[in-house]
């Protein structure tokens, strides 16, 4: 408890200053979190570097080391304006209950401060003080030393408030382990701003910056040389600048991968699918997350297409170029849909290749619509015969249009039919 109170006073957001203003010696501090009201003894000064009371590990940690980072806050002016005091000077304080410890204290400086308990005892909270002294009294904000949520720190932290203004969903980020602490440690002007400027330079729109940081907060800790090198690599592969910007905004993790890994993946897609460079560029530009995820599911999906579903290579190429998403689709779903369309609806493979949208849709949708058309005796998928219904229209039309155009029935009839399935 005592050390927790100690940490409380080491406000993360205080400016590092060697001008220690140790205004009082006994640590009678009111700890809002602990709300113990117990005067903390001076021995705590020596335990300035003790670790926190162990709490559940998911809590955000505010370590005293933060105080030595360059954390600029709006309160900087406040501290600079106060009279300079040399290290070790003891200014008798008048309010034993106010929290007046500044951070930046190292253990050596701690020992230099003489503990004047008698001075503390002589002063009383009811004494009148002058305006000058009142101004010097600094009330540190009641920040909890550890918290589950970034809500407690967002008002005080410049980084966090600027991120909220950018549109970053802090509530999502704080659920990920250690991300909250990482964001608190960042300094806006030296860490965050250069990377945001870099993203703007490569062409990412302002409205997308929040989305990118929400999904990939680690872009703010990636070194700028690496980021530049990866963008340069993509440009060298003849991706246009708008293309690169669009890829980064749709796949936020893209620039966290090394050049070698990106190269590996581009090579894989080109080889496995047998596509030209232009087509590979188009494929990756349409679905940039192909470069981000693992290649094993893609390899398995390609094998499914080849062996289980029996498509030839040029057919697979056509399907993948039309619907890149099938490369990362669920295998069970693919086989289930193909089995239904090919065996139950009796649609030949050539027709499925012509309309690959069918592989991307929901199984229930295909099933319900097909059974409805079958009930109405309109389920005819052969282009040679009259009253032909194309697969892409069957799957992509919204319900109202499907009922009126394809089935010539009302939506209510469709609903009633669904309840008989």
């Amino acid at each position, binding site marked *: 408890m005592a050390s927790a109170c100690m940490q409380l006073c080491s406000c993360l957001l205080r400016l590092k200053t060697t001008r220690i203003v140790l205004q009082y010696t006994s640590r009678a501090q009111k700890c809002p979190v602990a709300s113990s009201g117990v005067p903390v003894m001076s021995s705590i000064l020596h335990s300035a570097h003790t670790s926190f009371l162990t709490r559940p590990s998911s809590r955000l940690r505010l370590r005293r080391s933060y105080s030595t980072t360059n954390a600029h806050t709006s309160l900087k002016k*406040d501290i600079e304006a106060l009279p300079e005091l040399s290290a070790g000077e003891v200014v008798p304080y008048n309010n034993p209950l106010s929290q007046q410890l500044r951070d930046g204290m190292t253990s050596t400086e701690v020992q230099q401060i003489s503990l004047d308990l008698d001075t503390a005892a002589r002063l009383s909270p009811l004494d009148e003080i002058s305006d000058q002294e009142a101004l010097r009294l600094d009330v540190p904000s009641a920040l909890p030393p550890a918290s589950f949520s970034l809500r407690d720190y967002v008002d005080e932290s410049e980084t966090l408030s600027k991120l909220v203004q950018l549109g970053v969903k802090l509530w999502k980020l704080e659920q990920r382990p250690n991300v909250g602490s990482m964001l608190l440690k960042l300094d806006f002007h030296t860490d965050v701003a250069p990377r945001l400027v870099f993203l703007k330079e490569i062409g990412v729109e302002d409205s997308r910056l929040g989305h990118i940081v929400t999904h990939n907060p680690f872009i703010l800790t990636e070194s700028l040389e690496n980021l530049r090198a990866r963008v340069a690599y993509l440009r060298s592969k003849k991706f246009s600048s708008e293309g690169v910007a669009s890829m980064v905004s749709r796949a936020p993790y893209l620039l966290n991968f090394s050049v070698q890994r990106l190269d590996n993946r581009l090579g894989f897609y080109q080889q496995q699918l047998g596509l030209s460079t232009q087509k590979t560029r188009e494929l990756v530009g349409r679905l940039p997350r192909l470069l981000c995820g693992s290649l094993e599911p893609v390899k398995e999906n390609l094998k499914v297409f080849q062996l289980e579903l029996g498509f030839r290579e040029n057919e697979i190429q056509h399907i993948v170029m039309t619907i890149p998403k099938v490369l990362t689709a669920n295998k069970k779903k693919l086989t289930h849909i193909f089995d239904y369309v090919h065996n139950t609806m009796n649609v030949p493979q050539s027709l499925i290749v012509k309309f690959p949208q069918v592989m991307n849709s929901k199984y229930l949708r295909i099933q319900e619509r097909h059974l409805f058309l079958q009930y109405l005796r309109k389920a005819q998928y052969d282009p040679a015969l009259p009253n032909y219904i194309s697969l892409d229209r069957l799957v992509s039309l919204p319900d109202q249009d499907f009922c009126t155009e394809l089935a010539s029935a009302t939506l209510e009839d469709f609903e009633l039919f669904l309840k008989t399935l």
Partner: protein
Amino acid sequence: MSTQSIRVFRKLEGLFSVYKPKGVHWKLVRDTVETNILKGINAAPPSAPRLRVKFLLGPGGSKSSSDLTLSAASLPALSDHPLVSGPEFQQVRVGVGHRLDAFSSGVLVLGVGHGNKALKDLYGSCVTRDYILEGEFGMATNNFTHTGTVIEKTTYDHITRDKLEKVLAMMQGVNQKALLVYSNVDMSSQEAYELAVKGALRPDGKTPPIMLGLRCLHFQPPHFTLEVQCINETQRYLCKVLHEVGLELRSSAFCKGVRRTRDGPFILRDTLTRHHWAAPDVMQAIQHYRSLTKAPKHTRMDTNSTITGTQEDNHTDNQWQEKGGKEAIAPLN
């Protein structure tokens, strides 16, 4: 402090039924409905953020750096910003009544929030459920459905409609006897006679599956359709019933589809199909059931538990009332 979201949530508390499609696990249905309800609730505008008084330091009048003046300003607290606090509702309690396995489809009763209390009472009380079973003669499988491995194949030319009806009547008789046994009333007492006259002889609590009514809707060999009214059943038991019908007819049968058309007072007409699993439709359905339970009902005396062509609605209302369902639903009013 009642925000917009909380008001929307209050309207969404209650019981309603959805139509579970075939081949889908009931948990998926419940999760989808929960996600959609959450979307609807969180779409409401958030309340205004709290204001915090901040003392901002500004340059003093005398232009000296040591002179500072504090000015008070009332600013909205960023900790109440929706991007920091997140959506107001992150989870909603959606409960499922009598579950349906993945092979079956039909009426699935769900309860939201406080409606789960009524759902629990409904689940505990002995309400009857209606099923439509589609069967086919000629094969017997290991799990009694068309998805299992075939165990034997038989002929079915000798089966006629009246033979089928005889078998069904025999099965119904057996179940009637079981009904009387499990109603926990001494058969040779005056009380038993009076209850039987009123048709109020009902089992209570744990019983094995009992079919209160069984009839053939459609017969065209090898396909046939049965309608069943039962209590305490499982869908697998019903498939087994079909199998036994086949055995009784010196042939074999398997089940091609199980469809629940009624669960207590929740009928097929008011269920929500997949396209309507969203907050506004759910609100409407809940309002509908609330109005149903508010309307005064007269107890229709049921002469026998067989399906004699009485309307299903009144039959269900009767059942619902007898089992004290009214008290169960009362908290919703």
